[in-house]
């Protein structure tokens, strides 16, 4: 038989993505593209008030409207739908849960809280009928700022949570009081991590098809984690999991906003259960901005203690983290586990303490948003280091160098209790500085300052936590599930392969990179491997795609499964070639007896022979298929160093981002083109936070940035080329050494750009401006100094 001779290794090559042809031709099917016979359309009536008592809800006129099939309110749903569970119950935090109902009952708590649903033959008719629902409210005082919500006079959202505190969590290590008592220098800052709108280009959508006679539900859902949706849907609707099939078809971006279990999904399911017809609900963009979860929303008071020569001795902070009106699926874990435990970053910080208050506010619930907790930690550290550098008159790069953890390749214990897996932070920093020629940049800055121009340089070093995570740790930190991933590798008789995974990529390209893993391990062509995901009926259980964990955990599961296949192939080859299995070797797609590489079996030969099973060794089962449920022994910790160069125009406050360079280390790269794409997208999303994006509520709790006309996501003409470089430090515990790259860019770029702007304005004595750094904000910040000038 012929064997494929491999010239270049497929692991590490930037091949084109297998998912693209269908996406490029309009063949791909997203949730809103699903059309079923007899399908009807749902539209939600949402509260126009941030906080109010519902005094009247009359649906009778709406029910008479043309095309309307049904109108439901909480009075209809409450006997069927249970409250939506929060799935991250952070221990030791005195968590105050309050019922999160699919349709609000009696009281609405944010603009967008759903109170009724109309189902009609067309979506236009459904929206028309919404106007005919007579809803009246007694408005109540509202609060949207997380810190203000904890103050004495603040209105309370839930009787279960006095003072609106949903939880209070503390992380500490070392003797922080002593560190501050003996500090030579202390710098302080109040940082506002503004609320953001994730803005996946596809809004959230669900199509529910319940068949009364079988009691079976199929739910197409724009989600990052179909298996969690099935689990939660079963809890909320009572439909047994075995009758419940969740399909995440093509998903148009998530960035964390498609982790949550949404009220609208369960209401849509309810409608289908009641009507016995398929029901579709798709958010409009304006609805998406109210109903889909938001990100960030921290107010942070931070203090850093250090010596005069720049050695950090302690970090202390208090964070008020806005949770919005209800605790979304993973929300409590984000400002705590994913934020607080990463507070020492890539630095040796001997003592730290953080108090985190998760706070109910009259705003849309907050969830993970790209980076989820780590950008808020990284920004805090990188700000404080620059502030320290300014205070003691040392270059910020030198302060970083002084404090960076030295290179390590197999574990480093940090003060928060985590063990980082491997890192070479200085290496990444050196690389980025050499690439930009840092000294020359500083010289140019000095020259421009002479001319009255304000150039700024931002440098940051970061480490983040990915590959969530060991399930034992998940349990210990209150995650209501495991965090392993699964893969099934199935060889067909012709040597073609199907891979079934529990995770659910939605744009990250794992159909390609996972095929590369199989091809690399077993010597098949990439094009002979098809990766199947997103359908709970034909994939093994998995926890989903978020926290840059699909390759870091799911990829490990896949590697382990392919190695099981390889072990079976060795046994079968030994049997067929009449040799002991210990004497069988594998190289480039061939299995052969040591010393006689010309007599060999390919994996395709083995696939055929194992499947026909005419001649198997005693006790061997037929087929060539392996399953792995992989529970990682530790998290992975990607890291890097970024540089931004800006010029600020003081007359207008305009920030011109001139250059952006990223050095990231995610371990070995399976497909460097895809890695680069992840960095581009991530960096730009973080730049958006630094310069343009903010979800703005007015005092009454109205969302002022309620449409894509008001909320400024980055556009092509506002951005420079992102220069992408990398270093490679394998994870010691991952079977392929890989770490994850989905969020790195976002984690690093916000603070890098922010620090560059503040650096530019140093001669004008501006040392902080609230994000985003819009021309108006920058201009206003400059007014006192310019008046004085």
């Amino acid at each position, binding site marked *: 038989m012929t064997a494929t001779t491999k010239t270049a290794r497929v692991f590490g090559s*930037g091949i*084109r*993505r297998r*998912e*693209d*042809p269908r*996406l*490029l*031709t*309009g*063949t*791909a*099917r*997203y949730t*809103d*593209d699903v*059309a079923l016979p007899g399908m009807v359309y749902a539209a939600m009536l949402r509260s126009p008030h941030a906080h109010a008592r519902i005094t009247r809800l009359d649906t009778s006129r709406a029910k008479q409207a043309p095309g309307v099939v049904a109108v439901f309110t909480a009075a209809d749903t409450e006997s069927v739908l249970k409250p939506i569970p929060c799935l991250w119950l952070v221990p030791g935090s005195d968590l105050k849960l309050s019922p999160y109902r699919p349709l609000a009952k009696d009281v609405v708590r944010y603009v967008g809280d759903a109170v009724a649903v109309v189902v009609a033959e*067309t*979506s*236009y008719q459904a929206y028309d009928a919404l106007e005919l629902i007579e809803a009246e409210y007694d408005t109540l005082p509202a609060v949207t700022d997380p810190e203000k919500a904890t103050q004495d006079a603040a209105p309370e959202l839930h009787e279960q949570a006095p003072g609106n505190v949903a939880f209070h969590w503390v992380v500490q290590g070392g003797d922080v009081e002593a560190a501050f008592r003996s500090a030579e220098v202390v710098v302080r800052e109040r940082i506002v991590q503004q609320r953001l709108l994730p*803005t*996946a*280009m*596809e*809004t959230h959508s669900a199509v529910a098809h319940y068949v009364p006679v079988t009691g079976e539900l199929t739910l197409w859902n724009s989600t990052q984690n179909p298996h969690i949706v099935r689990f939660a849907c079963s809890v909320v609707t009572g439909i047994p999991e075995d009758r419940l099939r969740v399909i995440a078809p*093509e*998903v*148009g*971006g998530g*960035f964390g906003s498609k982790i949550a279990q949404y009220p609208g999904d369960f209401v849509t399911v309810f409608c289908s259960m009641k009507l016995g017809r398929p029901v579709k609900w798709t958010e*409009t*963009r*304006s609805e998406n901005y109210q109903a889909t979860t938001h990100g960030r929303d921290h107010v942070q008071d931070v203090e850093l203690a250090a010596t005069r020569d720049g050695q950090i001795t302690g970090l202390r902070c208090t964070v008020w983290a806005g949770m919005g009106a209800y605790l979304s699926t993973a929300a409590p874990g984000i400002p705590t586990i994913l934020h607080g435990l990463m507070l020492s970053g890539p630095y040796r910080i001997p003592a730290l303490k953080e108090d985190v208050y998760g706070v109910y506010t009259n705003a849309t619930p907050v969830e993970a948003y790209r980076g989820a907790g780590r950008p808020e930690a990284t920004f805090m550290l990188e700000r404080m280091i620059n502030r320290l550098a300014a205070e003691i008159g040392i270059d910020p790069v030198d302060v970083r160098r002084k404090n960076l953890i030295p290179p390590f390749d197999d574990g480093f214990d940090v003060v928060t209790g985590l063990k980082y897996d491997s890192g070479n932070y200085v290496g990444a920093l050196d690389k980025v500085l050499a690439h930009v020629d840092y000294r020359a940049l500083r010289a140019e800055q000095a020259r421009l300052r002479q001319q009255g121009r304000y150039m700024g340089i931002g440098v940051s070093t970061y480490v983040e936590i990915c590959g969530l995570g060991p399930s034992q740790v998940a349990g210990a930190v209150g995650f209501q599930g495991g965090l392993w991933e699964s893969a099934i590798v199935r060889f067909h008789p012709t040597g073609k392969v199907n891979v079934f995974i529990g995770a659910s990529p*939605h*744009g*990250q*390209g794992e159909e390609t990179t996972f095929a590369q893993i199989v091809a690399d391990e077993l010597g098949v062509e990439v094009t002979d491997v098809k990766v199947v995901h997103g359908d709970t009926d034909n994939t093994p259980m998995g926890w989903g795609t978020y926290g840059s964990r699909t390759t870091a955990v799911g990829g490990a599961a896949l590697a382990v499964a392919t190695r099981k296949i390889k072990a079976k192939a060795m046994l079968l080859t030994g049997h067929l070639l009449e040799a002991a299995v210990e004497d069988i070797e594998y190289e480039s797609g061939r299995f052969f007896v040591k010393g006689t590489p010309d007599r060999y079996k390919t994996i395709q030969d083995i696939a055929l022979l194992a499947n026909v099973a005419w001649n198997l060794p005693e006790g061997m089962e037929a087929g060539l298929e392996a399953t792995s449920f992989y529970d990682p022994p530790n998290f992975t910790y990607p890291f890097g160093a970024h540089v931004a160069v800006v010029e600020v125009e003081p007359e207008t406050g305009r920030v011109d981002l001139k250059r952006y360079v990223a050095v990231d280390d995610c371990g070995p790269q399976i497909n460097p*083109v*895809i890695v*680069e*794409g992840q960095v*581009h*997208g*991530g*960096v*730009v*999303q973080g730049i958006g936070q630094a310069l343009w994006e903010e979800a703005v509520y007015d005092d009454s709790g109205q969302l002022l940035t309620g*449409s*894509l*006309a008001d909320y400024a*996501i*980055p*556009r*092509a*003409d506002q*951005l420079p*080329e*992102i220069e992408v470089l990398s270093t490679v430090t394998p994870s010691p515990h991952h079977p392929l050494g890989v770490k994850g790259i989905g969020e790195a860019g976002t984690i690093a770029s916000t603070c890098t750009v922010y620090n560059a702007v503040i650096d530019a304005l140093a001669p004008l004595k501006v040392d902080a401006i609230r994000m985003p750094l819009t021309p108006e904000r920058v201009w206003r910040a400059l007014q006192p100094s310019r008046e004085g000038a």
Partner: protein
Amino acid sequence: MTLPVTITINGRSYQRQVEPRLLLVHFLRDVVGLTGTKVGCDTSQCGACTVLLDGTAVKSCTCLAVQVDGSSITTIEGLATEGRLNVLQETFWSKHGLQCGFCTPGMIFAAHELLRHNAHPSAEEIRHGLEGNMCRCTGYQNIVRAIEQAASNEGAA
């Protein structure tokens, strides 16, 4: 009230009765069932719905089906000919100009429009030409590269 319209889409004529308020994008997606054209906003910002109307790129959420009666539309489903990808589809693929793919149909038509007016745009001109189209995944960089590549492939052809 409904009105009759005849609209040619990807070379095929469709005669339908539609409500006067029906948006072209909903005509394409819901009436004709061509779901390749996407809806990303309700304020005509995102460009996901961009199609060709008599050869010119338009946002199909900004016009009514009745307004384009008698016109000819090209959607993403009609861009490849006889199974061969159009040059922009090819270069978006080879330059990794898409991730989730949701903005892609609109991006490709925006790029098509740009190249119609300027066969050899600079990177900066491309970025300006994409002002009306939003992508949340790619940071635009590989989209710019894909369009540059398409421009040079066309030039070579």
